[in-house]
């Protein structure tokens, strides 16, 4: 029975050592540790918050860039399309103009050729007539009257004309 009855000196030592230890630990040991733990927890919390903010900002920027890229792509497509249309129109205009000019040149050339032809034919007719008269005079060895002369010319012209038509 005596063994389980608390001894006074043990009670005193346990009491005193507990109180002194409590004072020492709560004044000098625990505060720096708890401050460090709280400081680290705060730092981790801040870092996590900052990381989250940065992630949100990065996502926002990425979305913004995506929109800008899509806009730029659509704008580029529009510009290319416009350029193609403008080029097509220009090409058509140039071709039409060239065709018109070529047509005009051709017409002008045909007209010139036609005029040249008419002039050449007239000249040829006159030459043939004179030549025919001269040849006929020589062949016949006689002088033709004015009336014979005229009739001969008429006949030659008609013959030359028929030759040309053939």
């Amino acid at each position: 029975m005596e063994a389980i009855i608390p001894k006074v000196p043990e009670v005193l030592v346990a009491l005193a050592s507990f109180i002194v230890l409590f004072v020492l630990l709560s004044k000098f040991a625990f505060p720096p540790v708890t401050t460090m733990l709280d400081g680290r927890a705060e730092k981790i919390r801040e870092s996590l918050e900052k990381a989250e903010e940065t992630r949100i900002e990065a996502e926002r920027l990425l979305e913004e860039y995506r929109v800008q890229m899509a806009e730029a792509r659509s704008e580029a497509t529009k510009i290319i399309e416009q350029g193609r249309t403008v080029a097509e129109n220009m090409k058509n205009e140039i071709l039409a103009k060239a065709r018109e000019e070529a047509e005009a040149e051709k017409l002008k050339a045909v007209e010139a050729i036609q005029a040249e032809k008419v002039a050449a034919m007239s000249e040829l007719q006159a030459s043939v007539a004179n030549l025919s008269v001269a040849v006929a005079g020589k062949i016949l060895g006689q002088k033709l009257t004015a009336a014979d002369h005229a009739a001969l010319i008429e006949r030659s012209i008609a013959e030359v004309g028929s030759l040309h038509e053939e």
Partner: protein
Amino acid sequence: MDNMGKMVEELLHELSVQPLFSKHIGTFTLTNYSFFLLIAFVLTVVFFLVGSRRLSLVPKGIGNVVEWAVSFVRDGLCIDMLGSEDGRKYFPFVGTIFFFVLFNDVLGLIPGAKPGTGTLGTTFTWGAIVFLVYNGIGIKKSGFVRYIKSFVPSGTPVVLMPLMFLLEIVSHFLRPLTLGIRLYANMYAGHIMLGIFAILVTISLESLSVGSAVTGGLAFVMHVIMYGFEFFVAGLQAYIFSILTTVYINGALHATEH
């Protein structure tokens, strides 16, 4: 067999409270348990004072161990049970209990040493401190009359009120006793067990026979296993003492809420 009885007797004598430097225990006599209690006190102070001065943002070494230990008690015990504000407020008290009990329990496992918690004088005293502190907290929080009234739950029939009050009073007074006896009994029984197995090994070595070799071998294995188990018990008892203290404080803080 007589030999064994003598050795057990010696073991019990060894584990009893004895004066260290005198023949009789007086008011201020230093006993064997108190001596080791003071050594545990010094070790606890040195460990925490050194550890708390080697803290760094990236924890390492002894600072890391101190931080882990403090975080275990403060966050895992006090704040979890009492909430952030009260947990931080009462952590120094609960922490002192936990670490002092733990250092004493572990110190007692060093061969030749004794746990300061292996005597009722120490454990009852700390139980009484817990009793005074948690009741003080309750009285400070709710006022003496309201706190005492809270011993009888609201809605109790008038006839049962005296009985309920009495039961509650008894239950409160039993708390420091159970705290003290539980810790003391675990430490004392653990050391008796280790001592018994050590005696068995010693006796087996004295007589050279197959039977005694087997007995001695088994006793040795059991001794090693029990020695490891006692480390677990040391931590567990510190945890139980602290968690019960926290539960009592929590009860006192919210005594008038039901």
